[in-house]
């Protein structure tokens, strides 16, 4: 029954004969592992085609919708993150496999007659794959892709004669818009894959016409593609798939940074790692001509030499030149890539920029995934510009951290190299308050060190603190010592409690002892207000560090409860923070909602719940 059905199909279609033709390709010298690379590339492309089309079914190419649809794929759609991760990492795997394939073809001299045309076809395929990476990078319309693509398209613009027009055609106008995305998407999902399929068919047909370029000497008798080589190819493809699947699993899909905003700077802009060598290369050239040489002429010449390899390689010496050239280029690429990584690793500003970018991405994901909110129809950029939580994060990275530091004990957080205000890391907690009560640390850059307050208050606060601690824990009557070190620890616990920070029983006990110490005669309340005691000769400690206190401090630091006591001092403006509340600063202040989020962040309580599915 089955046999007769097979016969029927074979008679009507001839498919069996075709399969035999495809599968029983002669493999000179038998199947070998070294022949698998071309197959892994074809397989990688097949994976990209399938995952790409499924992503397409969920993607929306407009500046108002692109980020949201990719957010949805990555964080809402069941299994979407894994699919996107595979597409993302397989794209990178393809670049690596391409490099291996190219090196091997040149090493084996497989570009020589009669295979020249197929070698050229391979180079065209390589360029198409690189163009696919470049166009795909923009599609999520996040800050990372947006700024990298701005650089890439501006490079198109410097091409002599046609550059300006070519850039306008690629971008779809003079500015980045919906048209940029629709065009990039048409290239990425339509034009380039179609070209790739066309070239791949020719590449494979020519490969079959010329036969496999066997590595001599042959070690075994000839074999067939099926099943020996197919098994080896399949194992290699399985390995590629496993690595890519593993990466996607490990990194939970692919990164999605904050929504693109051309009017918001992105200091962490970097291309994908396999283009880093070009990025680094561009730093070496300067001026208009230099740039054309670095970005167009030299890469163009390199490609020209690659295309000329079959002609150069006719003689043995030419083949050795080709090999030497290719290895020199690869060595150069590796060197530049390493140099780019090293330079970036040694760049504290980039570290800060990445930290800020991560915070912004987190708030974007938080808002997009909020159960009582989400991305408005106006788009993710509008959400980031208007939602108080997003605005608060931008105020923190753009303004707070221009003066404040936010650095943890192990160098984590944001490292402001020249802080002119306190280090906000751990604000409100006992350790922070205790640092403020340390005569050496209070004049360090973590607190008042780089402000005029250090000098002004030295005679008062510092002297007070010196007196408090010089005697260590030996509090002797008449020594002028107000608090012992242990007592200052307790005072700090009292402040920790006032700030409403978490504490255990033991710490609660210390805090209540500390509270009594605050009220001690000649102690804190000598200058600070604390409940009914003391007066406003210094900031009010009544509810120090609480949400309300921090909000008031951010809203109007010149308020009488805060640094109002400095009013009239000629260095008042330098010593106090700018006012951020809309009431105190109608021109560039922020609403109470924004201030509340900033205060939450200062207190380490800002919830940025990223959805994990």
């Amino acid at each position, binding site marked *: 029954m089955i046999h007769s059905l097979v016969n029927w199909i074979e008679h009507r279609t001839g498919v069996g004969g075709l399969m035999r033709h495809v599968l029983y390709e002669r493999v000179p010298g038998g199947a070998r592992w070294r022949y698998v690379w071309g197959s892994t590339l074809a397989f990688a492309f097949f994976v990209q085609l399938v995952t790409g089309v499924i992503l397409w079914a969920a993607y929306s190419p407009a500046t108002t919708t692109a980020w949201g649809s990719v957010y949805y794929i990555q964080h809402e759609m069941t299994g979407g993150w894994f699919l996107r991760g595979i597409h993302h990492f397989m794209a990178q795997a393809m670049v690596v496999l391409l490099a291996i394939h190219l090196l091997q073809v040149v090493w084996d001299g497989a570009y020589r007659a009669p295979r020249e045309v197929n070698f050229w076809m391979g180079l065209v395929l390589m360029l198409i794959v690189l163009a696919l990476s470049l166009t795909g990078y923009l599609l999520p319309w996040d800050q990372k892709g947006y700024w990298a693509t701005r*650089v890439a398209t*501006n490079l198109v613009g410097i091409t002599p004669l046609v550059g300006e027009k070519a850039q306008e055609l690629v971008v779809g106008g*003079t500015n980045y818009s919906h048209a940029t995305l629709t065009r990039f998407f048409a290239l990425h999902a339509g034009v380039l894959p179609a070209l790739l399929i066309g070239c791949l068919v020719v590449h494979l047909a020519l490969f079959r016409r010329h036969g496999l370029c066997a590595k001599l000497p042959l070690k075994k008798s000839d074999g067939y593609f099926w099943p020996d080589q197919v098994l080896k190819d399949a194992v290699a493809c399985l390995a590629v798939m496993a690595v890519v699947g593993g990466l996607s699993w490990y990194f939970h899909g692919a990164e999605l940074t904050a929504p693109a905003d051309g009017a918001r700077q992105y200091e962490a802009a970097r291309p994908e790692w396999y283009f880093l060598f070009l990025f680094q290369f*561009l730093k070496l*050239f300067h001026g208009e001509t230099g740039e054309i040489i670095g970005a167009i002429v030299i890469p163009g010449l390199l490609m020209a030499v690659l295309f000329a390899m079959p002609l150069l390689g006719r003689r043995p010496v030419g083949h050795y030149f080709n090999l030497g050239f290719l290895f020199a280029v690869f060595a150069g690429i590796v060197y530049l890539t390493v140099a780019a990584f090293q330079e970036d690793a040694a760049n504290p500003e980039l570290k800060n920029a990445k930290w800020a970018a991560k915070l912004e991405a987190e708030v974007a994901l938080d808002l997009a995934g909020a159960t009582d909110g989400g991305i408005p129809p106006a788009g993710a950029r509008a959400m980031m510009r208007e939602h108080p939580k997003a605005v608060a994060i931008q105020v923190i990275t753009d303004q707070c951290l221009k003066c404040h530091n936010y650095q943890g004990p192990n160098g984590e957080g944001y490292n402001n*190299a020249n802080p002119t205000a306190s280090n906000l890391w751990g604000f409100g907690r006992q350790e922070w308050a205790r640092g403020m009560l340390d005569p050496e640390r209070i004049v360090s850059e973590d607190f008042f060190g780089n402000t005029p307050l250090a000098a002004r208050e030295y005679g008062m606060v510092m002297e007070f603190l010196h007196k408090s601690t010089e005697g260590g824990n030996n509090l002797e009557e008449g020594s002028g010592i107000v608090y012992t070190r242990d007592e200052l620890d307790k005072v700090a616990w009292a402040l920790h409690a006032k700030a409403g920070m978490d504490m255990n029983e033991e710490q609660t006990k210390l805090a209540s002892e500390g509270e009594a110490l605050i009220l001690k005669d000649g102690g804190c309340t000598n200058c600070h207000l604390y409940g009914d005691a003391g007066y406003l000769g210094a900031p009010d400690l009544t509810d120090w560090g609480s949400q309300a206190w921090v909000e008031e401090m951010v809203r109007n630091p010149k308020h009488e409860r805060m640094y109002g006591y400095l009013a009239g001092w000629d260095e008042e403006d330098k010593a106090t923070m700018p006012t951020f509340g809309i009431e105190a600063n109608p021109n560039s202040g922020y609403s109470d909602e924004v201030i509340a989020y900033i205060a939450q962040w200062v207190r380490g309580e800002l919830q940025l719940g990223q959805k994990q599915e």
Partner: protein
Amino acid sequence: MSPPSREGTDLTELGSEQDRRGFIKCLAGFIGSLLFLAPLIAGAVPILAPLFRRQSSEDGPGFDVRVAPLAQVPEDGTPRSFPIYGEERNVWNYQSNVKVGEVILARNVTEGGEIRAFSTVCPHLGCSVAATEDTDLKATREAEAADEEGNTEGDQPEKDLAPAYLFHCPCHNSVFQPNGAKAALTEGKANPSPRGLDQLLPPANKPDGTLNDQGKYTFADDEGVEFVFVRYQEFFTGRSEKIAKEL
């Protein structure tokens, strides 16, 4: 290609038959390739559409815009960036009063505190520049200050009070001086920018609509509050010449 031969063809008719076949080949080839090109020709015009759209206002690319009260530009010369609000045409979407970019404003304290306005777009390849502390200059000044302390007698040189900063691009290390000029190359690194940081011009017209022929940046409103205005423009990157783009 020659067709398969047919049996029984009259050899005397072969000549005219060949002519006829030749004509058919030409015609079929012509119509065939025309058909192949038809969708491409129809598609070429819309694809090239961005090149046909040109809308320049009378006074050239860009627009005049009120940036901020003068009081918000730091008096000590520290640069500060301000958002620019304007119209945004995004193909089929239109929005007015939307943030379209940023400008950096600074007072030139060494020359009478005049306003300087810069584009934040790096002229190299379009990343955004920001002011960063000029650590070298700061160190030099600190060293000078230390020298002065040890050597108080005699005339003291006039102190340069301008804040020590540079404009720095985080992408390819372009660096610009406070006046926008390209900063000198440092320790073997190239400064890749083809030109200095783009200075924004004063508005073409005063707020009352008359020509701003004195090139002023600041104008008072009805209540006497001084505001900074600029001509907001964006420029082509990667060229030594500063050419404004149509927005």
